[in-house]
């Protein structure tokens, strides 16, 4: 979808409203769902989504409001283009549904409380306990205050850009007098590279994007094209359903078709891949059914194998054909030949006969998604139910949703992709909507997000809201960007965070109704990227180097490389893929590129995926990318020690080259109070007077004859370091308020 579609539509809608009387001033026949007919003039609409109303002017001049949902299909299509798609109206609908639920829940609880007194089954002590619980829940049914600009700003930056605002960004937003500045900021941030980086972190946790997919048997396959494809899909706002179809149907090598990265991630583990696909895209856990009928869901073991059979003709290794070189020699011979040239020139390690880099190249060539036409999935050796025999092959079939017509598609896999992403699939849209809701609010409408029940009513926190979000996503043709734009524009999102933790009972019974977002600890990436923001004026300035030469290298006919120089150049070029950074113009391979205070301060999405164990990012919960949604935000002593004593808080942030120190505090032409600047940079707010007093003590050493200017400056720098250190160590910094 065009990224400006919503904006354009917004403009269109306002024109429509103005000109409605002239453009639509004609009588037409209207038909309701149950066949009733009516002649009326179309005057406009109100509301949005499920509760949208159409305004119809009857012949007698009366205007009636009629629910759009009760119109015939034809009339709904007629009205649809006039329905508001502007974020504000849709956001208002979210707010209405949330408030309804909060109110309903509040009255219900009040009744529970009243009934408690006459309860004869509970002891007094139990009643007191229950009373406390109910009162706590009632408190959480009252919508929170709206955020102030400082709170909103910090949250929206963290949620959309994935990091805190820079000092300049913060000052600009807070100084702005534009009444619509919140909506404008949301629009602006959604168009930044920072948003693509943030969403990449979300997707890579879900899809398990990792480099050097060793455990899955891909050797050192370089996955740069896949990484960039995900980021580019976010930038292009590729419809989510399209993105999923691309991944599920991709064929070929990763350098020719980056979307193959998804299926290659589970290379050699076909059955796991099927389970993972269900978890990621349908929020459904079917792994159990690999070994036995699922104990709770209506999924039988045979269903699992029927589903798996959709992927049964897909291979992640090239067949013999794929290995052949242009002149007919094969990879093995080429490896031996080139290794020998290197060995003869003494370029291999002692006692080595095979060059490891060239071996990686040859292995990479074998990694490709291809269709063989031969079904590899069969029931397991110990299959014990009556409806099949061990080793029996089963016909691909879906156990819920639309019936799949295999004839209509070229491969079973294509049929599967179509079924999975079709609007008729009851879980596909709900899954992504629920996951995005969780991204914005810290808690899904359905928890856990990977276990969406077959029937949503009564399971979701707010069934009406969830179905509204579902239809909204479909109306938006799966534009994740537009969907998030609406969510972020809602009052529900812009309220203060909840100060209490939703209890597990609340989460479980679906009785947390979002008086505001849940208070969340920053993700590891948000935390790291915020540290990066404190060290540079352009946190998105350094990005991964492109991979243009990868394709060319892999398409090279190696049999033409005969001299030592040619072979050496070839292998060293391959080694640089996936390494180095770029500032948009120049490529940097040096070790110190992007380094400040000895650490590589570059956004998490532009670094190795994932970081090595023990890195700050991993310590704070970056996923190891082995499992779906494997990031964590729980605390540990090593984290606290890293913040108390580690290099980031003690060296990097206070490095003379760090943005905060160099530009903001000591930069030319920067006026204003140092303490204010530090607070705004780190916490996105101004200090209270008490805080300002405490912070500045020691920062302005008294004039002392015995003290040189240099010493005074050193004292000031140390005091500034103390304040930065202290602020970064607060819970306020670590959490998204």
């Amino acid at each position, binding site marked *: 979808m065009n990224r400006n579609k919503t904006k354009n539509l917004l403009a269109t809608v306002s024109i429509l409203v103005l000109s409605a009387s002239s453009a639509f001033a004609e009588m037409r026949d209207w038909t309701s769902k149950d066949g009733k007919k009516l002649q009326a003039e179309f005057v406009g609409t109100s509301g949005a989504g499920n509760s949208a109303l159409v305004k119809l002017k009857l012949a007698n001049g009366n205007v009636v409001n009629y629910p759009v949902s009760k119109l015939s299909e034809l009339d709904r299509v007629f009205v649809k283009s006039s329905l508001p798609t502007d974020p504000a109206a849709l956001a208002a609908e979210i707010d209405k549904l949330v408030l309804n639920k909060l109110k309903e829940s509040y009255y219900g609880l009040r009744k529970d409380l009243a009934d408690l007194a006459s309860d004869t089954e509970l002891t007094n002590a139990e009643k007191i306990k229950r009373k406390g619980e109910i009162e706590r829940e009632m408190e959480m049914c009252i919508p929170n205050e709206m955020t102030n600009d400082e709170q909103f700003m910090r949250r929206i930056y963290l949620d959309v850009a994935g990091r805190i605002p820079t000092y300049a960004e913060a000052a600009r937003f807070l100084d702005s007098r534009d009444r619509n500045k919140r909506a404008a900021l949301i629009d602006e941030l959604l168009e930044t590279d920072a948003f693509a980086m943030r969403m990449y972190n979300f997707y890579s946790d879900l899809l398990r994007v990792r480099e050097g997919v*060793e455990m899955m048997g891909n050797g050192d396959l370089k996955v740069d094209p896949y990484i960039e494809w995900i980021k580019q899909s976010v930038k292009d706002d590729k419809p989510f359903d399209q993105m999923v179809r691309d991944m599920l149907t991709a064929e070929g090598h990763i350098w020719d078709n980056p979307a193959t990265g998804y299926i290659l*991630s589970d290379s050699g583990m076909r059955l*796991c*891949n099927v389970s993972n696909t269900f*978890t990621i895209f349908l929020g459904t*856990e079917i*792994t*159990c059914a690999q070994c*036995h*009928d699922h*104990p*709770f869901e209506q999924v039988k073991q045979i269903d699992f194998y029927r589903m798996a059979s959709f992927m049964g003709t897909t291979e992640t290794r090239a067949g013999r054909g794929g290995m052949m070189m242009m002149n007919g020699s094969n990879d093995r011979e080429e490896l031996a030949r080139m290794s020998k040239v290197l060995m003869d020139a003494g370029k291999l390690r002692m*006692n*080595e006969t095979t060059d490891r880099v060239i071996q990686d190249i040859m292995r990479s060539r074998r990694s490709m998604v291809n269709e063989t036409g031969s079904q590899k999935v069969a029931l397991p050796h110990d299959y014990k*139910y009556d409806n099949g025999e061990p080793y029996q092959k089963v016909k691909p079939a879906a156990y819920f949703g639309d019936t799949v017509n295999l004839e209509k598609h070229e491969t079973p896999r294509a049929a599967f992709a179509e079924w999975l992403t079709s609007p008729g699939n009851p879980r596909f849209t709900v899954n992504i909507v629920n996951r995005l809701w969780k991204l914005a609010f810290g808690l899904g409408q359905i928890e*856990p997000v*990977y*276990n969406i*029940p077959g029937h949503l009513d009564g399971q979701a926190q707010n069934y009406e809201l969830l179905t509204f979000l579902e239809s909204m996503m479909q109306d938006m043709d799966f534009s994740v960007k537009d969907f998030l734009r609406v969510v972020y524009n809602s009052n529900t999102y812009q309220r203060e965070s*909840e*100060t*209490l933790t939703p209890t*597990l009972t609340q989460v*479980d019974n679906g009785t947390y109704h979002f008086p505001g977002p849940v*208070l969340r*600890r920053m993700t590891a990436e948000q935390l790291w990227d915020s540290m990066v923001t404190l060290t540079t004026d352009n946190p998105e300035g350094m990005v991964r180097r492109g991979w243009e030469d990868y394709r060319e290298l892999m398409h090279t006919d190696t049999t033409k490389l005969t001299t030592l120089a040619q072979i050496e150049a070839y292998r060293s070029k391959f080694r640089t893929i996936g390494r180095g950074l770029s500032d948009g113009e120049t490529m940097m391979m040096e070790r110190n590129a992007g380094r400040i205070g000895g650490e590589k301060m570059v956004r998490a999405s532009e670094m190795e995926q994932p970081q090595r*164990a*023990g890195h700050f990012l991993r310590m704070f*919960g970056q996923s*190891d990318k*082995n*499992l*779906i949604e494997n990031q*964590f*935000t*729980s*605390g*540990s*002593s*090593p*984290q606290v*020690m*890293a913040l*108390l*004593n*580690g290099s980031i808080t003690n060296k990097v942030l206070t490095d003379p080259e760090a943005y905060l120190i160099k530009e903001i505090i000591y930069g030319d032409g920067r006026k204003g109070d140092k303490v204010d600047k530090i607070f705004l940079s780190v916490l996105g707010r101004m200090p209270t007077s*008490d805080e300002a007093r*405490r*912070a500045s003590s*020691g920062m302005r050493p008294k004039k002392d004859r015995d003290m040189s200017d240099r010493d005074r400056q050193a004292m000031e720098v140390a005091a500034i370091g*103390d304040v930065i*250190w*202290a*602020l970064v*160590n*607060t*819970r*306020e910094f670590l*959490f998204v*308020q």
Partner: protein
Amino acid sequence: MKQELKDNLNKLDELSRRQFVARTAKTALGVSILPIAGASSKVLAAGGGKAEHCIFFYMSGGMTHIDTFDPKPGTETGGNTKGLSTGVAGIEIGHHLPGLAARFKDIAVVRSMTQKTGDHRGGSYWMHTSYQPRATIVHPSMGPWAQTLLGKKHETLPDSVVIGGGGNHPGAGFFGPALAPLPIGDAERGVQNSELPNGVSEDQFEKRLDLMNSFDEGFRRKFKTDEVSAYSQFYDETLNLMNSEDLETFKLGNEPDYQKKLQDYGNTRVGKGAMLAKRLVKSGIRFVEVQSGGWDMHNGIDNAMQTTGGALDKALSSLIDDLKAEGLFEKTLIVLGTEFGRTPKINANAGRDHHPRVFSTMFAGGGVNGGQAYGKSDKLGMAVEEDPVDPRDFNATIAHALGLDLNKVVYAPSGRPFLVAGHKRDRETDRVVTEGKPLLQLFS
């Protein structure tokens, strides 16, 4: 749903689906243990349960069996490794391990280990977890298993520590990060970031903490969520740890007679790892893993064995002596494991390649009867000849020594059942039971 499946999942059906999901979705707990019906096996009767601690030496890369615990001198596969008498009739070990040969009365070797994969990561994963790698779950390693089944051993110290580990350690797996072993990269440097950085004095640190607390006061007063309190608690605990004697235990240099001991254990990664492991065990930590590389000997195995094998011999020998001197040997199980053995045939580079069909491991202390060899490889060290032992049996043996219940079912958050030494369905009772069987012969 079929009745046997219900039973199979140990009466999970008594919980509604939602309750079940909630129970297993509590990421904070990460794990739920449901009681199983029927009495569990009594390990004490079989000589197990004597080990309060375990030091697990993991030889990363695939330790050659023929050049260490299962020499084949004089055969076509024996290479240049000679056999060394152990004092036990009929048992010799490789000449690179003279210290262990001299202490063989305390050592039991297993010469019939076997597993299925020749890739490092898959093999290492299986040895650490009893399960083969899957793309849908990460299984826990033994330290976190022990903590889950027995409870936390020490109030303030972590339950398990991995010294010198790489990035691929399965850690606590689905038990969640709270149970993850504390990683120590370099034994000499101790816990990362545990000391004040250069240039920051105690006074300055105190001042910073004061500032932090005053800046954070409003936020903490307003947000009383569990997560915020948990972090504040982590700060308190960490500050206590920094000031406590607990941290002292991680400082290798504080070991009495450090220089002398460094000579005994060897100034090597494995030597220092062993010495630190002893310190940690002494102060109450239950499970310490020492990882040591250099075993992927594709090239020049004789030279490699001299350094790597020699270092291991010194480290293990000194550890046994030291634990005995401190009175810890009987309650500390020493285990040595690796992902696979190496090919009997010596390759063109005078090295040996990956060989999962048969390999060796070693046990000592913690109730193990020394002076014996369990199982047998064939004449050339190609395959198992008697009493095959797979990674599940290997871990069952560790579990047995520690007194863990091999049949305790633990459910992952996704609801799947797992056991400490792998699981299978028992045909008679149709329950999930342990697949790994402990080597009871090793225990007195």
